[in-house]
């Protein structure tokens, strides 16, 4: 699977004195499950954007395995992300008017990468996340169910990396715990590296370790979970 190495990564915006993200070095092992915490505005989403290739740092290398995605042109980064990363966001970004199944398959279909086995996999994933009716319209799902569909979508192409930005923040505690549990167990089952931005103590506690961001810098890289 894939390990992440950040090297001298810096993101700044014009008009801001200090960079919003400034990470000298960070290494996350393959199949590790890491939580990212930090106050609002500390650069967590910026970090997600950089490590998923949605944005490029002003400087530095973002190595997934041996590949520096910061050096890839946009179309290549898009393709790399489609094949490598499963994303779960705070907002579910499901498309109303499409069924749960169609939502799970949409990104793959738009890439013409939804063959028979992909469709079968989508059904299996929906069953795994507890959605019983694959053809149910997304508009009628509960919020917890919506996020579970989003988790299934993230896993469809068997990504080596699973990244979540506040996956439980817009759910009530019960549903939040379900989704956290799903993310963790699915990452462990598939051997994906999991990086999750979260404030959810119950999720953070169950990760291998947690990183704290503060004003764009990594604070004391506290080890939790196994290391504790």
């Amino acid at each position: 699977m894939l390990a992440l190495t950040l090297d001298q990564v810096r993101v700044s915006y014009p008009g801001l004195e200090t960079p919003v993200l400034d990470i000298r070095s960070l290494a996350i092992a393959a199949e590790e499950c890491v939580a990212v915490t930090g106050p609002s505005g500390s650069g967590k989403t910026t970090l997600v954007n950089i490590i998923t290739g949605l944005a490029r740092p002003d400087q530095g290398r973002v190595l997934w395995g041996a590949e520096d995605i910061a050096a890839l042109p946009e179309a290549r980064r898009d393709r790399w992300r489609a094949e490598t990363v499963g994303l779960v966001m705070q907002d579910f970004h499901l498309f109303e008017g499409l069924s749960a199944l169609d939502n799970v398959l949409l990104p793959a279909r738009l890439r013409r990468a939804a063959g028979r086995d992909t469709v079968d996999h989508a059904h299996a994933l929906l069953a795994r996340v507890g959605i019983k009716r694959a053809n149910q319209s997304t508009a009628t799902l509960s919020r917890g169910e919506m996020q579970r569909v989003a988790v299934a979508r993230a896993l469809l192409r068997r990504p080596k990396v699973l990244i979540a930005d506040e996956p439980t923040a817009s759910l009530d505690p019960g549903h939040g715990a379900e989704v956290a549990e799903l993310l963790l167990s699915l990452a462990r089952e598939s051997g994906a590296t999991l990086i999750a931005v979260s404030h959810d103590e119950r999720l953070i506690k169950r990760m291998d370790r947690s990183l704290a961001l503060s004003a764009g810098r990594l604070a004391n890289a506290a080890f939790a979970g196994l290391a504790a």
Partner: protein
Amino acid sequence: MIRFILADLKRLWAASLVIILLVALASALGVGITLQERALRLGSARAADKFDLVIGAAGSETQLVLSSVFLQPAPLPLLPGDVLPKLKQDPRVTFAAPIGFGDSFKTYPVVGSTPDLINALNNGAAPEGGTPAGEHDAVIGSAVDLTIGQSFEPMHGAAGDAGHVHTEFTYQVVGRLMPTGTAWDRAIIVPIEAVWEIHGLHAEEKPPGVPAILVKPKTIADAYKLRGEYRGDQTVAVFPGEVLTRLYATLGDARQVMSIIALAAQALVAAAIALIAIAHVAQRRRQIGALRAFGAPRSAVFGIVWIELLALMGTGIGLGFLVGWAAVRLISDQLTRQNGVVLPVEFQGGDLGLALLLLVAAAAIAAIPASLAYRQPAVAALRS
């Protein structure tokens, strides 16, 4: 992709409908102008088909054509009485038939003429029911609401005028002509002698004048010679087809103005749609970013926006052609009911070019918001 586009359009059905209607109206306007002008041109050319050469007293050539070909009521000056006999004797003439206006029945003009005209209008066939023999025998056009055998009293004056009824004279319908698609379908043709008699003119003494004479020359050369000869102080001779062509030139100018107006309307609609679409794409920054974040390629994002908009505008254009055609059909049918001239509303090969041009323009317009979506950064998905 298609499923996503359909779901998207269904969700945005109200805005989609507005775009379709806007495009439909704008293209219907352009199509309608083209079709209507063509219908008028073809219809009146057809109407003038059997009228090779028309001779009348000196005056307006246009009015002579409108009165004889389209039976438009107007007081025409009378030709000197000796013109008709002279033309009938002329070796260059197949036939010369008088056209005598002045009376009407209900909304139908009663026209005095001779069997030659009936023959010409009916393509040489005998009228259904029979050929007129006596002075009281009338032959009706196909659109006249009378039956063979019925009698009627003509009224002095044009159809609809408050003239007096010639109670002293009764016609009987003996025959009916086949449809010609011209104003003559609404005409009642009676012997010219009857018209003279009703109006107190007597052919025995000195031939009375008539307002117009339809002349069928033997050859084209004869037609030109005759026209030259009868163009003078006393008479005018016209080829109705030529007069109509002149009229179309004026009509063509009007069409040009209308077309420019239609084009301006289309440009405005195009600009409005481009703006709506750009605003819409801006509004969907997050959704588009999410598609990209989840792995959709940029080309798919372009494709979705482009196809959605093109589908809407294409539907609008198709609908516009339909609406334009239907509107012109309606107007033309109304005109036919009023004056009998059948206006053929039809598409021609060149119209395909217009449709294609509109589609290409639509594709170009759709490409603007689509390329904006294409260039939108993917990070938008994660920002709230």
